C-alpha cells in the first residue's frame, strides 16, 4: 500500500474510532423516533401558574426519550451548574440528555443552528436559553411543527413560543438586592455603580431595572453609572478599577450577573473592605468567599442546578405522562455573612 493509502486509511480509522467513541458516550444506539403525546398549550402566565392542559395520554417507552439541552454559553461555573442539573435529571429519570453550546458565548446564529440540528436528530424535547427577544421564534416554531416541545430556562424572551420558563423573576431579584443594599447596608444614602457583563442581555437589564426601582425609595441614594465588565474576570476587574479611579466617591458596586465576583476581587485588592460595599448575583466559590470575608455584603442565588434539572423534568413529565407545562420561579436566594456558611457554591 502507498503512503497516501496508509494515511487515508489511518485518517478514516481515527475518525471512525472517534465517532464510534462519541456515539457510545450518549448511551443510546439509535435515535428515539417515538412521537410524544403532548399537552395542548393555552398560553403563558405568571410564574407558578399552570399554563397548559395536558391530553392525559401516556407515551410508551418513556426510557427512550431523548432531550437536547442547548445552552448559550459554557464559559463559567454557573453555566456548567445549569448543565449539571439537566444531566442529573437525565440520570435520575434514566433517559438521554445531551448538552451542547456554541463555542462563542451568546452566538445567536450558532445556537439556532444547534437547535435545528437537535430537531433534525429527532430529539423528543428541547430545553434552551432564549436570551434574544425574537431571534429564537422561528426555530422554536419549527420544533413545534415537528411535535417537539421547547422549554426555556435561565432566560426567556416573552412570546418566543416556549412552553414554560424555569428561572428567576429578574426584576424582583434586582429589587430585593437593591432594597437590602440601600436600606440595610448603606442606611439609605450613598452613590452606587452597576456592573453588568452583558449590555445586550434583557435579563440583566431587568435586574438593573429592579435595583433602580429600589433606589427610587431612597432619596439620598444616587446612581452614578452602569459599566460593562464583560465576561472575563480579569477584564471585569480592570473595568471596575477604572470606574473606581474615575469616581472615588462611590459607596457601592452592584453586580447583576455571575461576574460580580470581580467586585469582591477589586475591593479586596484595594483594601476597601468596609469603605466600599459590594453585591452581586450567583453563588460561585469566589463570590461566597468575598461575602464571608466582608468584601461583599450580599450575593443573590437563583439555583441554576434546579433550573437545569426542572427543565428536563418538565419535558419528561409532559412527554411521558402528558403532564401540563408550568412556569417555575427558582427564586432569589439572599446570601449574606449571616448564612454564607450554610450555602454550597454553584
Amino acid at each position, binding site marked *: 500500500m502507498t503512503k497516501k493509502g496508509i*494515511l487515508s486509511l489511518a485518517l478514516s480509522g481515527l475518525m471512525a474510532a472517534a465517532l464510534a467513541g462519541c456515539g457510545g*458516550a450518549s448511551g443510546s444506539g439509535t435515535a428515539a423516533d417515538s412521537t410524544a403525546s403532548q399537552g395542548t398549550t393555552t398560553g403563558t402566565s405568571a410564574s407558578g401558574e399552570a399554563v397548559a392542559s395536558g391530553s392525559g395520554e401516556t407515551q410508551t417507552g418513556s426510557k427512550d426519550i431523548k432531550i437536547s439541552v442547548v445552552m448559550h454559553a459554557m464559559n463559567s461555573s454557573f453555566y456548567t451548574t445549569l448543565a449539571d442539573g439537566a444531566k442529573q435529571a437525565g440520570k435520575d429519570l434514566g433517559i438521554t440528555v445531551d448538552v451542547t453550546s456554541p*463555542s462563542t458565548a451568546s452566538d445567536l446564529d450558532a445556537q439556532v443552528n*444547534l437547535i435545528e*440540528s437537535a430537531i433534525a436528530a429527532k430529539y423528543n424535547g428541547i430545553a434552551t436559553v432564549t436570551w*434574544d427577544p*425574537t*431571534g429564537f421564534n422561528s426555530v422554536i416554531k419549527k420544533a413545534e411543527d415537528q411535535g417537539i416541545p421547547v422549554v426555556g430556562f435561565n432566560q426567556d424572551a416573552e412570546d418566543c413560543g416556549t412552553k414554560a420558563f424555569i428561572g428567576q423573576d429578574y426584576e424582583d431579584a434586582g429589587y430585593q438586592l437593591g432594597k437590602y443594599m440601600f436600606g440595610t447596608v448603606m442606611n439609605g444614602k450613598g452613590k452606587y455603580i452597576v456592573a453588568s457583563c452583558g449590555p445586550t442581555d434583557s435579563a440583566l437589564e431587568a435586574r438593573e431595572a429592579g435595583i433602580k426601582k429600589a433606589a427610587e425609595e431612597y432619596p439620598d441614594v444616587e446612581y452614578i453609572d452602569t459599566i460593562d465588565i464583560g465576561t472575563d474576570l480579569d477584564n471585569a476587574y480592570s473595568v471596575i478599577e477604572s470606574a473606581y479611579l474615575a469616581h472615588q466617591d462611590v459607596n457601592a458596586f452592584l453586580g447583576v450577573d455571575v461576574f460580580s465576583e470581580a467586585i469582591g476581587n477589586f475591593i479586596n485588592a484595594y483594601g476597601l473592605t468596609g469603605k466600599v460595599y459590594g453585591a452581586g448575583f450567583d453563588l460561585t466559590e469566589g463570590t461566597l468567599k468575598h461575602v464571608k470575608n466582608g468584601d461583599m455584603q450580599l450575593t443573590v442565588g437563583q439555583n441554576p442546578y434546579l433550573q437545569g434539572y426542572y427543565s428536563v423534568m418538565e419535558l419528561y413529565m409532559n412527554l411521558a405522562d402528558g403532564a401540563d407545562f408550568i412556569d417555575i420561579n427558582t427564586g432569589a436566594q439572599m446570601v449574606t455573612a449571616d448564612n454564607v456558611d450554610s450555602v454550597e457554591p454553584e
Partner: protein
Amino acid sequence: MKEKLKSFRELGVICVLIALIILLTLARPVFISPTNFINVVRQTVQIGIMAVGMTFLIISGEMDLSVGSIFGTTGMLAATLYKGNVNPTLAFLIAILAGCAIGLLNGVLVTKTKIPAFIATLGTMKIFRSVAYAISGGQSISVFPESVTNSWVFKMGGSLGPIPIQIFIMAVIFIVAGIVLAKTEAGYNMYATGGNPKAANLVGINTDRVKILGFIISGAVSALAAMISIAYLGSVPTTAGEGREMDVIAAVILGGASLSGGRGTMLGTFIGAMIISVVKNGMVLLSVPVFWQDGFIGVVLILAVLLDTFMHRKDSRG
C-alpha cells in the same frame, strides 16, 4: 486519469468530506435525511459567503480578522434603518456599501501605511465591534415593520419549496467567485500578487489595488451574510458575528488555501466550509460532550491540512 486526479487540488479535502459524510451516515442514518442535509448546507451559508471574500484575500497574501465585526456593524446598521422605516432596498444597499467602505479602510491601512493585515484588521475588528454596540445602545434589534418583513430583503430568509433561498444565494456567489478567480485577469492577478508580489509588480500588476479589491469584496460579502442572517432570524444581537472570523479562516485553510498566499480555490473553500458545518452538525447527532466539540473541529482541521500538505508534497516530488 491518475494524473488528472493528482492535479485535482481539492482531492484531499473532498476525501475528508466524503469520509465524514459516510462515517456520520453509518453512525447516525438521520444525518443523510433530506431535512438534516438541507440544514447542514443552510448552516454553511454564512461562513461560506464570508469565506468567499476571505479566499480572495488569502490568495492575495492577506487576511481579514474584522469580518465578524463587519457582520455585526452592518447588521446593526441595516436593522436600525429597517426599524426606522427606511426603504428596505435602500437600507440593504447602504449596509452593503458600509461593508465595502470598511473593507476599503482595511485595504488602505494595509497597503498604504504598511501595517500588517493581522494588526490592522485586529484594530478594525475592535473598532467596528464598538460601533455595533454604539449603534444598538447595547440592545438586540428585532421586531421590524411589515413593510420590511414583506419586502424582498426578508424573502432571503425564506424557502423555495424545501430549499432555503439563502442556499441559492450562496451557490450563485461561489459560482461567480469561482469564475472570477479561475478565468479572469483579476483572478490571475490575485494569485500572482499572493504567490510572488515582487514578480507581480515587475510584470505591471498593481498589487496594492488587487489587495484593496480583496478587502472590499470581503467587507461586502460579510455585510451580505449579515443581511441574510437578519432575514432568517428576524433579530440582530450586539454579539452578532463575534468570533466568526476564526470559522471563516478555518474554512478557507481547510479548503487548501495557503496563508502565505498564491494558492486556494473557491471549490476548496466551499468544501472547507461544508466540513465545518458537517462536523458541528455531526457532534450534535453523535452527542459529543460539549467540552470536546471545539477540540474535535481542531482535530479535523489539523488532519485535513496534514493530508493536503502530504498529498501536495508527494505531487511536487513527481
